[in-house]
């Protein structure tokens, strides 16, 4: 492999990066790989914007008094942090960056089913994102990313309508991507690639797409009704007319709970790919892991009112939703067990992607378990709206999802760019991320249990030590995120040439050159092997290269 890349360097061999030059060839591309890079750049920018708001929040919380910003400004900070991170980073990240790049390649196709719709999806994302930016710049929103009524409809004096419209538009990006993935996976698989030979990353993105298609429209109508109430006095949630603010919450969480599965499922798909590769083993219980993705997608729609236990819903409904919440934990646990079982007696190596995968498995498990605590009615009465909840969702979202995203970026970086990142710096960043993350968020479990409310800019002095620890952790975490930015960019110019398959990984995407040609494969592959055939791969001297 080293010989092959020495003979023909990346610059000479035609690939999707050098196929065409000029800004128009990027902004008008229909190549799923280029669109993935467009998303990578925009999502990274929004990630750092959301991180900027997080930094201001943590700075305020260094001291018990509300002395850095006013309470109104603080409300805007956590709102904007939530909106940007949830809607403009977490929901799109893995599907649009890794999914767009890899889904066609993993199934042996030249592109997605609807390439122009894919480009439209990015433009709609940008339009929605800019609309949200406009809402931020012209004064911000202070309702919380959850837009609860009647504050958002009646009493807030901030840019609620602009933010709602921005998110509404960005939601279409989700829907277009979801439709594209479902049709692609159904109809464009290579000959021989049966459903049970698909990589689990595909199953995860398929399940995610189902949620996107079914759930996002409900958020869309809910935000539209909030905007309609503010603009046109259509008082559907107006309590003065007999409207029920809880109806808003039901409609909002009907999407927003499955939304968290939109965020985590693609990440789980990444972990399945990485754990198998760095254990040199087939995944344990393929059928169960694939089925678990579908179960998470379906069960995820049945639990939303666990966000509303203390909001005033009937206690009988609360009990039903609490029970259903326990069920949804089962398929996630199945996945964790199966990943561990995959590693058992595997030949494990500790490259950076595997480090992130280890981090994911541990931190996601903690986040998931604390989710069960919150799903228990009795416990939730005590810890709802405290930092316990904040810690829980950051464990699953940051310790889980963002780690999985970094894991995937590192794993597939050689495929996407043809370059290797510097392993030493990458391992350091992974370590800093892990340490920084735990230092930031573990104290928050304790704070929440002790009673510190969330969304408050001031707190009792006895909570200060833990808050200082948390802010210190956030600084370390920030370094852990900035370093990859630097070395990834560095690697584009100075990184070692990667070759088609530096990890000797299974999967069709590794059977073509790095970076891939525009049409992905020279000839359409015909698949006659099962997924994760690492025993066969390791028997051979060299991985067969289709191109």
């Amino acid at each position, binding site marked *: 492999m080293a010989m092959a890349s020495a003979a023909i360097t990346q610059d000479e061999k035609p690939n999707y990066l050098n196929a065409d030059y000029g800004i128009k060839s990027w902004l008008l591309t229909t190549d799923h790989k280029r669109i993935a890079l467009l998303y990578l750049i925009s999502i990274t920018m929004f990630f750092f914007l959301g991180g900027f708001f997080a930094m201001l929040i943590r700075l305020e919380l260094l001291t018990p008094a509300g002395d850095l910003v006013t309470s109104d400004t603080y409300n805007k900070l956590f709102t904007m942090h939530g909106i940007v991170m949830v809607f403009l980073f977490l929901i799109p990240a893995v599907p649009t960056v890794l999914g767009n790049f890899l889904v066609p390649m993993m199934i042996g196709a030249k592109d997605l089913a609807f390439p122009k719709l894919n480009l439209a999806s990015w433009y709609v994302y940008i339009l929605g994102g800019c609309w949200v930016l406009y809402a931020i710049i012209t004064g911000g929103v202070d309702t919380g990313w959850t837009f609860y009524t009647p504050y958002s409809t009646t009493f807030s004096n901030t840019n609620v309508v602009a933010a709602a419209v921005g998110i509404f538009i960005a939601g279409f990006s989700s829907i277009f991507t979801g439709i594209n993935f479902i049709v692609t996976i159904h109809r464009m698989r290579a000959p021989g690639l049966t459903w049970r030979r698909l990589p689990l990353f595909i199953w995860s993105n398929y399940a995610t797409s189902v949620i996107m298609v*079914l759930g996002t429209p409900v958020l869309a109508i809910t935000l539209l009704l909030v905007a309609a109430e503010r603009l046109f006095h259509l008082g559907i949630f107006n309590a003065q007319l007999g409207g029920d603010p809880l109806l808003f919450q039901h409609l909002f969480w009907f999407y927003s709970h499955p939304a968290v599965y939109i965020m985590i499922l693609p990440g789980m798909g990444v972990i399945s790919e990485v754990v198998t590769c760095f254990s040199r083993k087939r995944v344990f219980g393929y059928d169960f892991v694939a089925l678990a993705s579908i179960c998470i997608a379906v069960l995820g729609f049945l639990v939303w009112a666990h966000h509303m236990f203390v909001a005033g819903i*009937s206690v009988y409904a609360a009990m039903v939703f609490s029970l259903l919440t326990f069920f949804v934990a089962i398929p996630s646990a199945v996945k964790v067990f199966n990943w561990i079982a995959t590693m058992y007696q595997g030949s494990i190596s500790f490259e950076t992607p595997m480090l992130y995968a280890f981090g994911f498995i541990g931190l996601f498990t903690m986040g998931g378990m604390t989710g069960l605590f919150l799903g228990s009615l009795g416990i939730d009465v005590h810890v709802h709206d405290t930092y316990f909840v904040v810690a829980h969702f950051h464990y699953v979202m940051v310790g889980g999802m963002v780690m999985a995203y970094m894991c995937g970026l590192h794993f597939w970086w050689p495929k996407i760019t043809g370059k290797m990142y510097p392993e030493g710096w990458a391992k350091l960043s992974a370590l800093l991320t892990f340490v920084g993350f735990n230092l930031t968020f573990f104290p928050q479990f304790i704070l929440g249990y002790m009673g510190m409310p969330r969304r408050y800019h001031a707190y009792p002095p006895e909570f200060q030590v833990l808050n200082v620890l948390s802010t210190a952790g956030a600084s370390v975490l920030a370094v852990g995120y900035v370093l990859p930015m630097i070395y990834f960019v560095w690697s584009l110019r100075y990184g070692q040439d990667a070759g088609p398959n530096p990890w000797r990984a299974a999967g069709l995407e590794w059977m073509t050159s790095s970076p891939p040609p525009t049409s992905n494969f020279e000839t359409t592959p015909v698949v006659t092997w099962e997924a994760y055939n690492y025993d066969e791969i390791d028997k051979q001297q060299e991985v067969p290269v289709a191109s």
Partner: protein
Amino acid sequence: MSEHAHPTVKSFFGIWITLLILTAITTAASFLELGPFNAVVALFIATCKASLVVLFFMEARYLPKITKMVIVTALFFLGLLLTLTMTDFMTRLMGR
């Protein structure tokens, strides 16, 4: 262009007339005093009309299995939204 029997222009007119008749019936029925069954009748007729449009005008009968599953799934999840939300609103005053 497709393997299935092609619907004829005549069949389209037949469905059209049926839809118009059902519309007339549902409006007329609304003037009758049927108590709670007014709603049942109205929704039943609406579902008949919707089924005719989906099955015949949108040719859902001839769709591949996966596309039919897509339609069923949509209705199922809409049902979930409605029924599970109702479990809250309908049991709020229970036990009082």
